[in-house]
């Protein structure tokens, strides 16, 4: 399948390519060719693309250790996208709206968004500084006495749900309740940014819950045998 056609079917795949550090000027290359060029596991690539396309990845384990390392790189790259691309973009929109409309509701909205993003950042930091390094050691060693257990899948998904719910609140507030006259352009940009963030975060969570953690559990089990 040609990569360009895949992208045409779902432009969100551009985000996926970015997280893989792949330039999206893919010319005529097929998925397989692209994967070979960037040394990425084809099965992994397709699994994640399926997630972006909404079709899930049932029964596609096991992934290799090399795949898992690539997943972690992918996730870390996403973190940078959230921290340095999405967050400033949304923050600027809200700041601008607030300057045009000094009502208290908007100050509260900005506060709400900042609280929300602080939670997100804490989650990202935890993953970068604790969870991922742990996984990497797990993947690197054959037999290792690991004192810590993998952050249970359930806890991970609970935390993701919290963050997602706050983002939904934000969208509903903008869409249904906060009264702002004019600045339709700005509000639209803000809303679309939130929507893109929500989507990518959702896929991010799915990757962690359906690829990273289960594979990590498999490896831990292997090691304990």
């Amino acid at each position, binding site marked *: 399948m040609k990569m360009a056609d895949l992208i045409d079917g779902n432009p969100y795949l551009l985000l996926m390519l970015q997280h893989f550090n792949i330039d999206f000027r893919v010319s005529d290359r097929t998925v397989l060719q692209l994967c070979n060029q960037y040394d990425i596991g084809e099965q992994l690539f397709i699994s994640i693309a399926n997630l972006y396309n909404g079709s899930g990845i049932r029964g596609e384990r096991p992934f290799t250790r090399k795949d898992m390392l690539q997943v972690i790189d992918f996730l870390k790259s996403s973190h940078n996208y959230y921290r340095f691309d999405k967050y400033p973009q949304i923050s600027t929109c809200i700041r601008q709206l607030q300057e045009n409309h000094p009502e*208290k509701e908007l100050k509260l909205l900005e506060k709400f968004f900042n609280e929300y993003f602080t939670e997100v950042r804490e989650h990202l930091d935890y993953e970068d500084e604790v969870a991922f390094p742990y996984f990497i050691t797990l993947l690197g060693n054959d037999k290792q006495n690991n004192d810590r257990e993998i952050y249970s899948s359930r806890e991970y998904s609970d935390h993701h749900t919290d963050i997602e719910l706050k983002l939904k*609140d934000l969208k509903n*507030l903008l869409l249904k309740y*906060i009264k702002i006259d004019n600045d339709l352009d700005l509000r639209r940009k803000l809303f679309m940014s939130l929507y893109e963030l929500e989507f990518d975060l959702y896929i991010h969570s799915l990757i962690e819950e359906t690829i990273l953690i289960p594979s990590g559990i498999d490896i831990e089990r292997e090691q304990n045998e």
Partner: protein
Amino acid sequence: MNKSAQLHIAILESSKIICEGIQAILYQSDMDCRVYRLDTLDDLIGLLEANPVDILIANPVQFVNREKEIQKIRKNYPSLAVAGIDFGMMHKPSTLTDITFTLYDSTEHIVHLLLKLDKKSQSQPNEKEGEENLTKREIEVLTGLVNGMLNKEIADALNISIHTVVRHRKNIAMKTGIRSQSGLTIYAISKKIISIEDIDI
């Protein structure tokens, strides 16, 4: 069947024959309704104080010489819709009713009119509640939440159980689409349920 969709209909009519006839029409139709039968205007006032009533069906001739009382009732219960029964004795349409039907109208027409009445009164914008239609209790729970009270504190303040508070919170979240406390604060401000000055930034 959803309790809140049930129509509460009061029939103010002293003729038993007329009352029975209207009640039969209502029960035979598809409408999910609860019917109260009243003899006098005072009975109506008593009923309104104890129960929610969506539609009042009455012969407007009974309102003659008691217009002030009726207007007061309509003012105190703005969501009450009034359907007048025309016995053929009215020379001009009553200003106190929303719609009128006659003794000779078909069942379908009468039911149709009543349903239209109900839809109209439901879609009237309510300053405090808005389209989400939060109940009075839900607004109380929301106010507690927004003031930073914990579930237990809200339960104690309102004299209800914690389970009830939790249930109200679920309903609030479902109706508004907002779950977090900070989100609900912004919601409450934009709906003027609390005053902006109450919030410190």
